[in-house]
Each structure stands twice: as C-alpha cells, then as structure tokens.
C-alpha cells in the first residue's frame, strides 16, 4: 500500500494550491479529485482575484487579498489580466457609499500597480463605456485583476506533479479510517480503471469545497458549511469595454465583466441545500441578473445570451445573517480536538486566497509531520509564467494569426513555444479547431499529451474549447476525433464523447434559451441529430446527475 506524507482530497483551486505547496516543500504528496481539475465551484466563478474591497468590514481580509494579488502578479503574470471597472451611480444614495470604499482601495493601490479610485463625470464615464446609462450622476473608476481559473488550477496541479506529487483525477474517495499506527487509510474508486485503491497518509487535507462536510463525515468528523449557490449569465462577446459593477434589485452588488472572449453577468447568492452535482441556473436567477444590470446597461437584453453557469460556494457556517454578512475569510478546521488527529478541513475562502489557504494549511501539515520547511509558493512562478512572451514575433515565425498566439499566451505563457514547436513536424496542426476562441489543433494535441484530460470537457477546461458563441457547434466532432486519435478511443467511445460534451453544454444553454440562440441551437440539432443521427445513437450513454434529477 502506498504511503504518503499528505493526501489532499479535492482538485479545485484550493486542493491544487495545497498540492503544489506540499510538493514544493518536499512532502510526499497525493491529490485525489473525483472528477477533473477545476470541474466544480472554481470552474463557475468569474476569475476575479479581488482586492477584497467588497469585504471592507473585514480589513484583515482586504489586506490579505491585496497582498495575494501582488503575489499573483509575480507567479502568474501570463494568466492574469487587469480590467478597468466602472461603477455608475444613478441616484444620490449611490454616491454616499463610494467614499469609504475609495479610501480603503486607494490605500493599497500602489502595491498592486493600479491607480487610486477616480470619480468620473458622466461625460468621461460615457467616453470609457458608451453602453452605460447616460442618466448617471457620476461613476467610480478603479482596476482589478482577473485570472483564468481553469489555467490556474491546471498549472498548480502540473507544477505539483513536476515537483513529485501524484495528481490523480477521476478518483473518488469512498472510505477513510484511522489505522493503528495513527495513520489515515484512504480508499478510493478509480473511475478510469474501475478499481478500488488504498493509500495511507499521516495527514489528510480536505479541500472538498461543497462536499467538504461529506468527506469529513467519512471519518465521523463534524464539519458544517453554509452552501450558497450563484449563477452567471454568459454573453456571446465582450459587450462592454470595461467591467461594470451595479446595485441589484435587492441592493446587493452585481457585475458585468468582459471575460476572455465573452462577458460574464453575475452573480446571484442563494442559500442552497441542493446536491451540488445537479445545480442548474433558474429562470429567476437569470431575470434577477438581467433586470438588475439593465439600470446600468440599458441595452443588455439586445446581447445574445449563450449560456448560464451555476456553482456552489462552501461558505463558513455562520447562520442567521444574510449571505453578504458571512465572512469571506476561510477557516482551517483541525479535527484533532474531536479525536480525529491528522484531518484538516477547509471551509469558506475565495479564489484570490487559494495560495494563502494552501500556505497556512501546509504549515499545519508540516508541524504535524514535525518538519519546518519554508513556503515558497509566493516566490516561484507557475509553469510558463517566468517571463513575458513576444506574441508578434512568434506569430510571424510560425505563420499563425496574432490572435491565436495571443490566446495561447494567455493560457500557457512561455510554454506556448512547446505547442508551436509541434507544428514544425505537423504543419497541418496549425488548423483552427475551435474558431470562437480560437484553438489550434497543436494545442489540443499538446494538452491531451501533457495535461491528462480524459474527456472533451476536460479539454475545454484546458484550452477553452467550445466556450465561445457557438458553444461547440462546429468544434465538438472535430475535437472528439483528435481525442480519439490520441487516446485510441473506440467508435462508441467517440460517440459518447460527443454526447457527453453536448450534454454538458446544453446544461448551461438551456435555461436562458432565447433570441438568436434559437437559430444556433437549430444548427446544433441539424448537425448532431438530423444529419449525424446521434439522437438515435446506440452508444451506452449514462445520464448526467442533473439529467437524472429531473
């Protein structure tokens, strides 16, 4: 039986960060993820690595978030981007709340390389963003950083792996027990081999996110989380030049951010007792967001909605206060006082804190192991983020569009050279497979070989395949063919990949289905049902959790 120093359960932003930290400190590390890297909560977030100003009532957290942004600028320069944000103020009462915020934000601005908050006249505001409501009184301008959450998690996992950690996806922990030698034995089911495997470790870190309570429950440890669900509406392009933050129908703040080649409108926050695997955005959530942003951006309904996404936040279990009052900090629960020594669980936290969370839990892990090794995750860059990239030169050198190279850079930084290198022997791999993003065949091949995807959905997380306006209409079958080549899939598995991917896209496309999206969907049905006849496929398709739930 394999013995580890530490086993991390969960491959989201926290789990991958912990795996990276543990590996960097030389611990014998195993990370177990039930599905794929970043396949749950973090995959449904907007990617904002917020300076924390939304949490002004918690100044320690604002300090921590601001400092983490500085670290991300150092370790993740190629996968972060800075977005200007406007907060249009439409009523006098909006003005009063701005001052305090501006002061707190500006205090920490210089270290993050952003200007202090500016108050703009309506004329200046409209120059920056003509789509905002011209009736505004003034606006507040500031800048925040964003990160590609999928790439962050993948790179953390890859970095951990390169430093010796075992990263196992599609491995679901099914049982845990204390052994006589004060170790924890972890049994998991490997879905790729359909085998049960056993491993042991001195310490187990529970980074299960919305499932953290269930994971703790396997050792009869008590853990409470306050599950809170949130929806985003995704628009087909960058409908605004800059991010917009505005007050929602109920006085909460919501946002419309340009994000990659789309725009994200979010988010809702609803206490939830649903199974996180079955979450789908509701019509109420969609209309709440549209109605709310309509005051700030009156033309929003003219934009084409391509999909929604719904995720579950595992908040710290503070009750009888509104969701907005629950701490945005995190807690590491050491279950030792309950008699379960060696199990550490997370609740709460935000994307921007994932490195910090990893550092503090790894400190605790080291202490339990009797080791004293310093954290360096804030110093050493993630793979591909050691230097900047000359996009124009590479585009000319490899005879490929600058747009395609720039998108490659934003995902892989300096490691994009390895992708382009493949096209020397295979110039046909310069072909664009997903035209919306765009993604070239070489990147898909590279990702399949180096980044352990098992499905087309995993590939989507690695290369943003099928995330644009056509939502995989024209790339699904092409990418499935490439996956089949690389992984040696059978004809049936090839069909199942297509069915699986279409089903996952449909989960998000269906709730807001309207307008121009109807003709897009008519093309999808035309290709995959009418012509390919996959609506009558004999392949043994397993319904997805959200499909079973209805």
């Amino acid at each position, binding site marked *: 039986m394999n013995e580890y120093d530490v086993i991390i359960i969960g491959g989201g932003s926290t789990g991958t960060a912990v795996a990276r930290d543990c590996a960097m400190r030389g611990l014998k590390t195993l990370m177990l993820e039930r599905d794929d890297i970043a396949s749950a909560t973090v995959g449904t977030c907007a990617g904002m690595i917020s300076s924390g100003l939304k949490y002004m009532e918690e100044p320690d957290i604002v300090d921590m978030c601001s400092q983490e942004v500085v670290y991300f600028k150092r370790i993740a320069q190629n996968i972060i981007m800075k977005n200007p944000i406007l907060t249009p103020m439409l009523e006098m009462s909006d003005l009063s709340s701005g001052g305090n915020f501006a002061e707190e934000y500006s205090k920490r601005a210089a270290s993050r390389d952003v200007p202090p908050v500016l108050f703009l006249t309506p004329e200046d505001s409209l120059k920056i963003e003509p789509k905002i409501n011209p009736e505004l009184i003034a606006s507040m301008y500031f800048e925040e950083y964003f990160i590609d959450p999928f790439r962050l998690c993948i790179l953390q996992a890859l970095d951990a792996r390169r430093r010796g950690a075992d990263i196992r996806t599609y491995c679901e922990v099914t049982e845990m027990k204390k052994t006589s030698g004060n170790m924890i034995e972890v049994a998991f089911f490997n879905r790729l081999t359909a085998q049960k495997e056993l491993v042991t470790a001195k310490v187990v870190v529970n980074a299960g996110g919305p499932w953290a309570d269930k994971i703790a429950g396997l050792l009869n440890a008590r853990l409470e989380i306050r599950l809170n669900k949130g929806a985003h509406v995704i628009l087909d392009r960058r409908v605004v030049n800059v991010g917009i933050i505005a007050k929602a129908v109920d006085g909460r703040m919501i946002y419309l951010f340009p994000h990659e080649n789309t725009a994200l409108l979010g988010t809702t926050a609803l206490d939830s007792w649903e199974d996180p695997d079955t979450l789908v955005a509701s019509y109420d959530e969609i209309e709440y967001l549209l109605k709310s942003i309509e005051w700030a951006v009156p033309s929003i309904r003219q934009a084409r909605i391509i999909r929604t996404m719904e995720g579950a936040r595992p908040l710290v279990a503070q009750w009888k206060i509104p969701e907005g009052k629950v701490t945005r900090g995190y807690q590491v629960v050491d279950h030792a006082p309950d008699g379960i020594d060696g199990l550490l669980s997370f609740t709460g936290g935000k994307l921007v804190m994932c490195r910090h969370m990893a550092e503090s839990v790894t400190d605790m892990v080291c202490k339990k192991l009797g080791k004293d090794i310093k954290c360096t995750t804030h110093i050493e860059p993630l793979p591909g983020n050691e230097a900047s990239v000359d996009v124009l030169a590479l585009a000319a050198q490899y005879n490929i569009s600058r747009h395609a190279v720039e998108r490659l850079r934003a995902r892989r930084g300096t490691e994009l050279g390895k992708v382009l290198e493949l096209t020397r022997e295979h110039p*046909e*791999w310069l072909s664009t497979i997903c035209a919306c993003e765009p993604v070239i065949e070489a990147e898909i091949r590279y990702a399949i070989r180096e980044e352990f995807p098992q499905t087309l959905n995993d590939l989507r997380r690695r290369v943003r395949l099928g995330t644009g306006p056509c939502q995989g209409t024209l790339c699904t079958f092409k990418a499935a063919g490439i996956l*089949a080549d690389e992984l040696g899939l059978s004809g049936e598995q*090839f069909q199942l990949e297509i069915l699986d991917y279409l089903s996952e896209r449909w989960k998000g496309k269906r709730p807001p289905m309207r307008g121009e999206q109807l003709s897009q969907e*008519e093309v999808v049905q*035309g290709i995959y049902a009418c012509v390919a006849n996959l609506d009558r496929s004999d392949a043994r398709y397993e319904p997805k959790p959200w499909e079973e739930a209805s």
Partner: protein
Amino acid sequence: MDIKADLLVVGGGMAGLVAGMVGAEAGLKVVVLRKGQGATAISSGAVDIMSYLPGANVPFANAIEGLNAVSEIYPLHPYSVLGYSDGGLPVDPERVVARVSEAVDWIKGKLNGSPSALVGDLGRTIQAVTLLGSSKPTSLVQGTMFVEGSDDWHDSIVLFVGFRGFPDCNSSITAKNFLASRLPGENRPRRVANCTLDVLPFGQPHNIYSFDIARYMDREEGFAELAKTLKDHVRSTGADFIAFPPVLGLRRARANKFELEDKMGAKVFELLAFPPSVPGLRLQNALESALSTDGGRLLIGHEAVSFEKKEGHVDSVAVKTPQRTFNIIPAAVVLASGKFIGGGIKGDESGFVETLVKLPVVDVESYQTAGARPQRYTNILALSPEGHSLFGVGVAFDSMFRPTGTDGQPVADNVFAAGSILSRYNYSAEKSGLGVALATGYAAGANAADYVKGALP
C-alpha cells in the same frame, strides 16, 4: 419603384424555390426573395422524407410506411393535410403518399442533369453514411452520395478518405465508428481502412475547408492530382468502396465520381455533410437555376420587411436591400421564410412570433405560444429521440396551407405558407425537413397559382 408579381415568395430555400417553380410552371410571373443563405444551403444535401416517429428509436422501413403512420397518428401534420379531401379530415393515407410521391418525382425531374441530381424513392430507405461514420436513414440522396450495394457492405473493403489539414473529416475515427455502428455479420464490411491525402489547394497544409477542396476538384488539374494520389491507397488496401468527405466538387461532382470509379476500379460515394456543406450549396444552386429555367426571378440579398393588408388581402410587401427599399405588389404570397435559421420565426422571453406578417405561432400540439418562454419547449436531454418541441413551433395553417390566426381562419385570402415556418411537425426528431419543405412548397405553390387564376376552391 414598385414591382408587380403574380406570386411573391418570401424565402429562397427548398420550400420557397419549389413554390416559385410550381408558380412559374403554371405561367405566373414569379419573384422569389432570398435574404441570405438559409437552412437548405447548409443542409447535408440529402432529402429526408419521414424516417422516424418522434420518440421512436427504430426507423420506418421506408417513407411510405412513415407517411402512413403520420397520416394515422398526426392528422394535423403538414403531410397529413395533403391527404385531406374537400378541405378536411379524415386523412386519406394513400392520397398523402401519392402527393408526396408526385412532388418527389417532380423534383427529381427538375434536378436531373444537375450536380445534385437525386437518387432514391419513397419505397426504399437509404442508410447514408455520415461524416462521423454513423448511419442515417433517409429517402433521397444526391447521386454523388449513393452507390448501389451500400445497403449491404458484406465482405467488402471500405476506404475512408481524409485530407491533410482538413479537420472536418478525421478519416481514421470515421472508419472506426462506421465499423462499430454495424453489428457483426449484418451488412458488416470485411475491413475498413483510411488514408490521408496530401492536396494543397492554396499551398498551405492547414485550415483547409470543404469548399477549398471542392473548388480544387472542379478544376481538371486538381482532379487529376487527387486521382493520382488516391490510386496508391486504393491499390494497397484493395478497396471496393471509397468513402469521400462531401467535397467531390460544386460543379463537376457527378463527373468526378464516375471518373474516379472508372480510374480506381472501386465504387465512390460522398459522406453526409455538416455545415459548411458542399452538397447543401450544390442543392441550393441547382434549385435556383431550375427556378431561373422556369422563368422565375430570384432576388438575392432582398428581405421582406413589412406588408400592407386591406380587407383580408395582402396587396403590398416592402422589400429592403442594403441600397434601397421598394414595394412588390403581389397577387399571391407564399411565406417560406423558414424557422429560426431562416429567420421566419423568432422567440424570446415574451414568446414566439412570425417575423413578417406577425402571425401568431403555435406549438406542435396547436397551442398558442404567445407569452411562453422558448425554454419551455426544450427537453432536459440535449439529444434524444423525442427531440425538442422547440423545433416544431410555427404558424398554424388550413387545408390550403394558408396561415391562420387565433380564430383558426386564414389571415389573408392570398397568403400561403410552406416549409419549416409551418408548425405541427418536428423535422429534427422525424428527419423530415427537406421532405416537408418539398411537399408543402409544391402544394402551396400550386394553391397560390390556383388562387391567382381564380381556380382555388
């Protein structure tokens, strides 16, 4: 500048062009408006008649069985309406089959000699092979997509062709899936093989599109080059059949197929296409030139934007191009503007509406859709034999294919409708799209001609 026309057809896909041709054949002065390229031009280029009952996994034995079943089960289906006598129920299934059969024979005649000449009939299902290697039961395919013996692959060797830098067709997985989709013993080929040809229409081996190869194949040098490259693969695999992605040419596709068969000593056929579709455009082009042969006038890039109606009669339709707006004064109108792709129907949070005349839209079961969100007409499964009833919404219509209002009465005495703008059938689940477009275009065109001549009962 106003234009007078006996028959104005709004929409230049299968339904509209067929209606226009029928009108022109009857001696009418016909104008067909086509805004852009619609669903016909991006279709696979095969004409489905009626392959499945929605919800059923097993296809009909042939289209005749399908039409009989529809007549029995869905008396309001556009096909069933063809079987009404004296304007109403019951449906006479034999009449349905006879009228669809008449339209099929007619269109085969129209397209005869064109690059998209059709093969097949209602009595026989063709199991066409798709770009993914899956099979799809249909009734009519273009001659280039057909080989005798394709219903029995027994003991044969099938070679799937791909092109380097043409990512739409991965001949390796297509071959694998083709084999996997066939049970051992039953029509199963002895062996499949695949090859990747190196042809460079533009000198670069990447981002090659189906139309690049098709245009290359339309040139003699291109075809000769390809034939030379292919020969070795045919020889080394001993192929009996050669499955091509749908790129055999836009103009010379038929000649290319027969010449290749001759040179290779093997049967050649094209797979069913996805958009952008060479066979789809071939079909579109052939229909357009048939309309012009019949004396009909096609206005491309022209969109009908509004209309004037007096006393239940549409007497003027405003038409817009990027340069100008003018009126067409029609004696009769056929609405064949399609569903969502064509732009005939649109839907949002406030419900569905027909876009030109603002006709009410009903669902497959004839319920009004005003105020209903599109999501309501979707299934939780992306793909299923039931499909999404979303693709069955459209305008209601009477036995003459005149669109009707909420009172069930025709909205105008001189307006007819054809193709996917019609409700009460789900073409995607049935696999009946171009078939219904053909049969209803044929009927609506004839009804409109009768109306103009004062002969409509």
